């Protein structure tokens, strides 16, 4: 029973968290500068590429241009510093990511258990998952780089909230949480939540994005596609997290499903995302309508995370939020 807390490591973890927040904030500023002051040439470039593609599709033999991701720097004219700011922002995001991961690792080592067993640790881990998802997705979809500002602001705000309102000293947890199920159930929930958060960001931008206007943001079609991709990835993971939760509940509470508030909202979230996927796959609600469903689902996810832990309680209420009874 790891009762001893390594206070040195615990303090290091707390300091790393502050470093993480700062790095994310600076990254956000960098992204914002790139987004706001870079030359707005992307839209046009995209259109040109689109024409080339149509040509390729109808098979003009030789001349079909090779399609490749837009180069990291479109700013053929205009000042070069915004692009540099964007690059620095990316570096800062990676550094923030490393600090974020370090914060969790040191916390875990300090307490000798998985470092996501209370609300504070949970939020920190979700931020890491979100930023990881963003960085990986950005690799695959270069258009996403201009969403960095939004992801960084979401991560910085969440971590700020966690430090200010949720922080608890590193320490042991209830016996029910000393279980390998934390690694299975909670990790799956965290990764799924991280991916869903990227979907939430792209979804919100989708609603505000107006095609045809010069903008560095990805086109609505891109946003739609990327959102779908993230949800398709995250949904099975979420399903798995809920089922693992049920298996754990069967071991811990003597029933696999008992309509505890957290279970109810996990179920509602699941249904809402399923509805989004169905709507998109079987027609009817395409585009904006499907995106609204996706955002409703994301709202349910957030409510389950924040609302249920803070206001509704239930068996899951060992979230250990400071100030709550």
């Amino acid at each position, binding site marked *: *029973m790891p*009762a001893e*807390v390594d206070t040195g490591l615990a303090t290091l973890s707390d300091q790393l968290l502050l470093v993480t927040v700062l790095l994310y904030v600076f990254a956000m500023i960098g992204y914002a500068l790139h987004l706001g002051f870079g030359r707005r040439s992307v839209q046009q470039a995209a259109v040109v*590429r689109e024409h080339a*593609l149509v040509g*390729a*599709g*109808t*098979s003009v*033999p030789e001349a*079909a241009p090779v*399609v490749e991701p837009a180069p990291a720097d479109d700013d053929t004219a205009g000042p070069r510093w915004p692009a540099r700011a964007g690059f620095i922002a990316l570096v800062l995001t990676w550094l923030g990511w490393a600090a974020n991961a370090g914060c969790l690792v040191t916390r875990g080592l300090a307490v000798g258990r998985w470092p996501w067993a209370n609300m504070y640790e949970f939020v920190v881990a979700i931020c890491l998952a979100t930023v990881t998802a963003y960085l990986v997705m950005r690799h695959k979809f270069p258009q996403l780089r201009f969403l960095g500002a939004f992801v960084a602001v979401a991560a910085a705000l969440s971590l700020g909230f966690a430090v200010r309102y949720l922080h608890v*000293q590193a*320490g*042991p947890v*209830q*016996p029910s949480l*000393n*279980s390998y*199920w934390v690694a299975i159930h909670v990790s799956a929930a965290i990764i799924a939540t991280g991916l869903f958060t990227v979907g939430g960001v792209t979804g919100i931008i989708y609603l505000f994005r107006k095609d045809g206007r010069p903008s560095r943001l990805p086109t609505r*079609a891109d946003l739609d*596609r990327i959102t*779908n*991709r993230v949800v*398709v990835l995250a*949904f*099975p993971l979420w*399903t798995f997290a809920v*089922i693992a939760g*049920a*298996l*754990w509940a*069967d*071991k*811990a*509470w*003597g*029933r*696999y*499903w*008992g*309509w*505890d508030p957290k279970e*109810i909202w996990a179920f*509602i979230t699941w*249904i809402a995302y399923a509805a989004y*996927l*169905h*709507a*998109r*796959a*079987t*027609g*009817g*609600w*395409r585009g904006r*309508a499907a995106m609204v469903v996706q955002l409703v689902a994301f709202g349910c996810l957030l409510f389950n995370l924040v609302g*249920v832990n803070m206001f*509704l309680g*239930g068996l899951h209420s060992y979230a250990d939020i400071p100030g709550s009874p």
Partner: protein
Amino acid sequence: MKKTTTDDTTTRESAAPGDRPAVKGLGAVGWLRWFWRTLTAMRTALVLLFLLALASVPGSLFPQRGVEPGAVTRYFQSNPGTAEWLDRLWMFDVFQAPWFAAIYLLLFVSLIGCILPRTRVYLRELRREPPAAPRHLNRLPHHAAFEGTAPTDRLVAALRRRRFRVVTGPGWIGAEKGYLREAGNLLFHTALVGILLALGIGALYGYRGNVLIVEGNGFANTVAAYDRYIPGSQVSAESLEPFSFQLDDFKVDYQIAGDRPGQVLDYTARLSVHDSPAAAERDYTLKVNHPLDVNGTLTYLIDHGYAPTFTVTDGAGQVAFEGPVACLPQNSRTFASECTIKVPDAKPDQLGLAIRFLPTATEMQDGSWDSTFPAAINPVVQVTAFAGDLGLRSGVPQSVYLFDQERLKKMKRLVMMSEPVELGKSLDLPGGHGKITFTGVKEWAALQIAHDPGRLPALVAAVAAVLGVLLSLMIRRRRLWVRVRDDGTGQVIEVGGLTRTESGDGGFADEFADIVKALKESTAPEEPERSTEPAGRKGAPG
């Protein structure tokens, strides 16, 4: 719901042209058919699923009788008017409510009505061959052409190796793959029905119960032994698994130092178990997350508390009470607890003793006493004693843990919150009423015993559901055609392909390029390439 002319509506309308007579001519059968059609439409299942989610929301906002009956009682006390109305709408029993059951049953029927015809269509489709090649392969979303000579069976073999289903015609090959997508979809929907069934089986054939056991005492699994017993409607008292056990020892480890003293680190309950009356005794260490399993009937550790032991000697010098008394914790951090002893056999008067138990007693600044740590480090009791008629023969059931305040008013108060009585010490009751001795400290464990025959079916169905979701989300249905054509100078092999699922176009470009490469490799190698461009339509709207 946005009205658009989508596949869904058009196919539904065109599928049933004869079913759309003037509304007034519908008739009973017509209405039934209309109802069935509507109920089993994909959209209805979706709407019902949404409704089910919506219907479960109040279950998270109001306390539920099945989960926290105490909270429901408190709600009734603080808002009697609203509570009564809410109760009429089943807001405290959402998951037993008729309206909840209605949605659940409709969904159930809708799912079945959706699955059956789709399975029929799917089976037919499985037997159908891939369609013939369209005339212009270059109009397909994915297209490539290269020069080479290859016997058809080499190309076919290359496609089969990639597990395509292949047909050939004069000068063309048709291939299709990804049938598992629909299989996954069907599996998923069937699994949902399975989960609903498993929940139903559990509710009908399962039971659960709670029992509080003091160290040294035992339990045999019979209905009478439970403090609270909730059987499903199809459970008979005889069907309970006939095991028994004794609680030998219960222990809690607390964090002593650090910034969270008193935090529980571990609970350990040691049991001696008889799996059946005839079976040999075995030891079992019961812990949180590690229930005792006797042939599928599980015993869980869910709560604990203190049971101090006392000896009460009455005014006549007789021992009128001896043994442990289970106390309810009033504060989960300090485990200051309360309990009552009712001694109807005491002479000259019956005695009622209210006990306050402090596991780690400490004197506060104002001179009162309280507990400062949950472990029994310095256990003391404080006694409040009453003499007089306990009213036990009135027939009105009484709480084991509390005195009826009205009753106490009629009794004579002997002692009011005594000075702390240490372990092994006695307190004399004034007026020749005898004495009470604090003889020891035991602990009690609250156990839940549950049997749910739906557990395993639910797990199987849930795993099937995940599998189904994965298949139907990850697999694309894709078609591919190859045409071999002679353009005078040599053979040109044309390949065209498409995916049949929207949003599934993403990775197909790469796969298509791979296939084209494989096909090319199966052609004669000496020919120089004329043109290749597996057209990756990355930017195209999916």
